[in-house]
């Protein structure tokens, strides 16, 4: 019996980085956040800013798209659509002006990742704007920043002025002979402006009602011209990919969810804050190792902003790797990464009333199911329940309303309200029935939480 030559062991591929504790992991997006003078051009240039943009501008738009596709970057605004693919939808040689719009209208409850990036490292975002603008053949980019982020807007405007004076932006951006300009447009307090077509209307000086799609922004976006809207972190990540390479980015994460990601925690947790970690980090590591663990018993959490359906706070869920696919398999979304912990001793109906009030307030009023269904009907039923005047039938009416609102509106705002509330009712139906039946909540810890010192 003879055996052939011993099989040559395939060169072992290094294991993907899926923990912030992995010594190979280093924060990049937030590397400079919190450092003194990190927002100045001098600081940024010392730390390698615009090297990625130079590399990008030296190549073709297609080369950037391919590199970003190869890296596996997916949109960080919540939907997770591959950024490189989105860029490739833009027409070529159509003779029209193209626009890149950075969606910095961060208004999703529980989400605060873009804010510190813009305040502390505006040049990283500007570098990403140059990369993205070249990738979609745009000469003008707008950063639509929510009106309340005044420090962020001021820092961005100062960074633009510095970059223009240094020839990084302007008629001959970075010396590549191409005109590239970036402008900041401040919002004025409207959650709906985070929806890309509503954002475009707002930028055009109209009321921020969403537009019908098609036409998609890549065909007719702002000013009727081909446009692409990307989240702040997507754009900043593109700069990092051009600086450190697609392989660096795809060395982190799980099979289909690559790269570094900004998880952030709020609610009763020891260290609320933004934690840059690789995708595929477990929720246990995020909440306990980095967040320091809850400060009181927790019954559930929203994994990525208030719009994402709640997950129960169980060992199975905590040991789950946070990525797009695992969240989808549990009926929720990775979303923005903004984790909101839901305390055990707070009544779920009161907490969901807070969400319903939010979405009712933020409905743009265009579609009846959203405007009346959430703004009026659901609000009134929740008001009735939390004020102790509910009756058992209210729970059924709410369920009926879910079906008549979800999927019945122009944009996703209505669904974004129904999904978390429906998930809460599925997980804690007993609490809904209790308050409807007894006129008082099952848990009473909601109203008395303000600290004196």
């Amino acid at each position, binding site marked *: 019996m003879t055996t052939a030559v011993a099989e040559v062991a395939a060169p072992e591929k290094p294991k993907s980085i899926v923990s912030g504790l992995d010594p190979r992991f280093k924060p990049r997006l937030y590397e400079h956040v919190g450092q003194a003078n990190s927002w100045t051009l001098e600081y940024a240039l010392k730390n390698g800013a615009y090297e990625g943009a130079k590399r990008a501008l030296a190549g073709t738009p297609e080369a950037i798209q391919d590199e970003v596709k190869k890296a596996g970057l997916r949109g960080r605004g919540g939907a997770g659509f591959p950024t490189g693919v989105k860029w490739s939808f833009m027409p070529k040689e159509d003779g029209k002006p193209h626009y890149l719009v950075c969606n910095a209208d961060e208004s999703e*409850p529980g989400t605060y990742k873009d804010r510190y990036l813009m305040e502390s490292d505006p040049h990283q975002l500007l570098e990403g704007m140059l990369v993205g603008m070249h990738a979609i053949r745009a000469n003008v980019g707008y950063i639509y920043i929510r009106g309340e982020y005044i420090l962020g807007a001021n820092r961005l405007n100062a960074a633009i002025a510095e970059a223009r004076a240094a020839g990084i932006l302007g008629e001959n951006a970075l010396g590549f002979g191409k005109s590239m300009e970036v402008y900041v447009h401040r919002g004025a*307090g409207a*959650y709906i402006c985070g929806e890309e077509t509503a954002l475009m209307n707002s930028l055009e000086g109209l009321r921020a009602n969403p537009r019908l799609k098609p036409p998609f922004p890549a065909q007719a976006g702002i000013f009727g011209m081909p446009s692409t809207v990307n989240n702040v972190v997507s754009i900043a990540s593109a700069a990092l990919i051009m600086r450190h390479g697609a392989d660096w980015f795809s060395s982190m994460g799980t099979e289909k969810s690559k790269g570094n990601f900004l998880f952030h925690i709020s609610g009763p947790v020891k260290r609320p804050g933004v934690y840059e970690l690789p995708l595929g980090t477990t929720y246990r590591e995020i909440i306990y190792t980095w967040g320091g663990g809850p400060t009181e018993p927790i019954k559930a959490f929203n994994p990525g902003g208030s719009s994402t359906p709640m997950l129960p706070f169980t060992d199975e869920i905590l040991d789950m790797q946070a990525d797009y696919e695992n969240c989808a398999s549990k009926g929720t979304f990775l979303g923005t990464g903004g984790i909101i912990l839901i305390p055990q001793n707070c009544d779920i109906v009161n907490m969901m009333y807070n969400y319903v009030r939010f979405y009712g307030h933020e409905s743009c009023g265009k579609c009846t199911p959203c405007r009346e269904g959430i703004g009026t009907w659901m609000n009134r039923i929740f008001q009735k329940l939390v004020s102790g005047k509910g009756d058992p039938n209210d729970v059924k009416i709410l369920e009926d309303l879910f079906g008549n609102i979800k999927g019945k509106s122009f944009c996703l705002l209505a669904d974004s309200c129904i999904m978390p509330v429906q998930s809460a009712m599925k997980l804690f139906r007993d609490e809904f029935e209790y308050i409807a039946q007894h006129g008082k909540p099952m848990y009473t810890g909601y109203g008395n939480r303000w600290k004196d010192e």
Partner: protein
Amino acid sequence: MSFFTNKQPLVADILSRYPANRKRSAVMPLLREVQNAEGYVSDAACAEIAAIIESTATEVKSVMSFYSTYSSSPTGKYHLQVCMTLSCALQGSDQMWDYLCETLDIGVGDVTPDGLFSVQKVECLGSCGTAPLMQVSDSGYYECLTKKRLNALLADFKARGDGSLPESDVKAPVFIQKNGDVVQQITADGMPVGGAL
């Protein structure tokens, strides 16, 4: 004299950010200028903005009424906007709101007799890690507000009396690198802070 008469360079700068045939895009920055200077946007100002962007005052008001940070009635020198959404509510924003209204003896739409304060409930300000908080006028955030810290702030505003503001003392709750190691900075009383070490 109308508001923008002697501010032509500013108007030109705002218009230069948008395509020449898309003056309407300037409506929000122009509204912002008036709101910040006067504390509200009057009908006369709407008409003036309409003339600049080549639209009508009705259209300008329609846009203005869509957003929560423009006001059609006067506000105080310190317009206090309290975030009421869940992450803040879980840190006591409802109680803070009640306390604020009681202490200042005003409600939504009122201005204190000395013209200093007005209050508004607002939705998520994107500062969920440093809740509860309020935004003052068109300026910065004041975060991690305990009753003690809120009282100190109100006393500070009253002492200033001119709409000027102290610097925020809360920095980003994020990783800080120290000697190559990544650590997060926490103050003794549990408030997250960042900034230079």
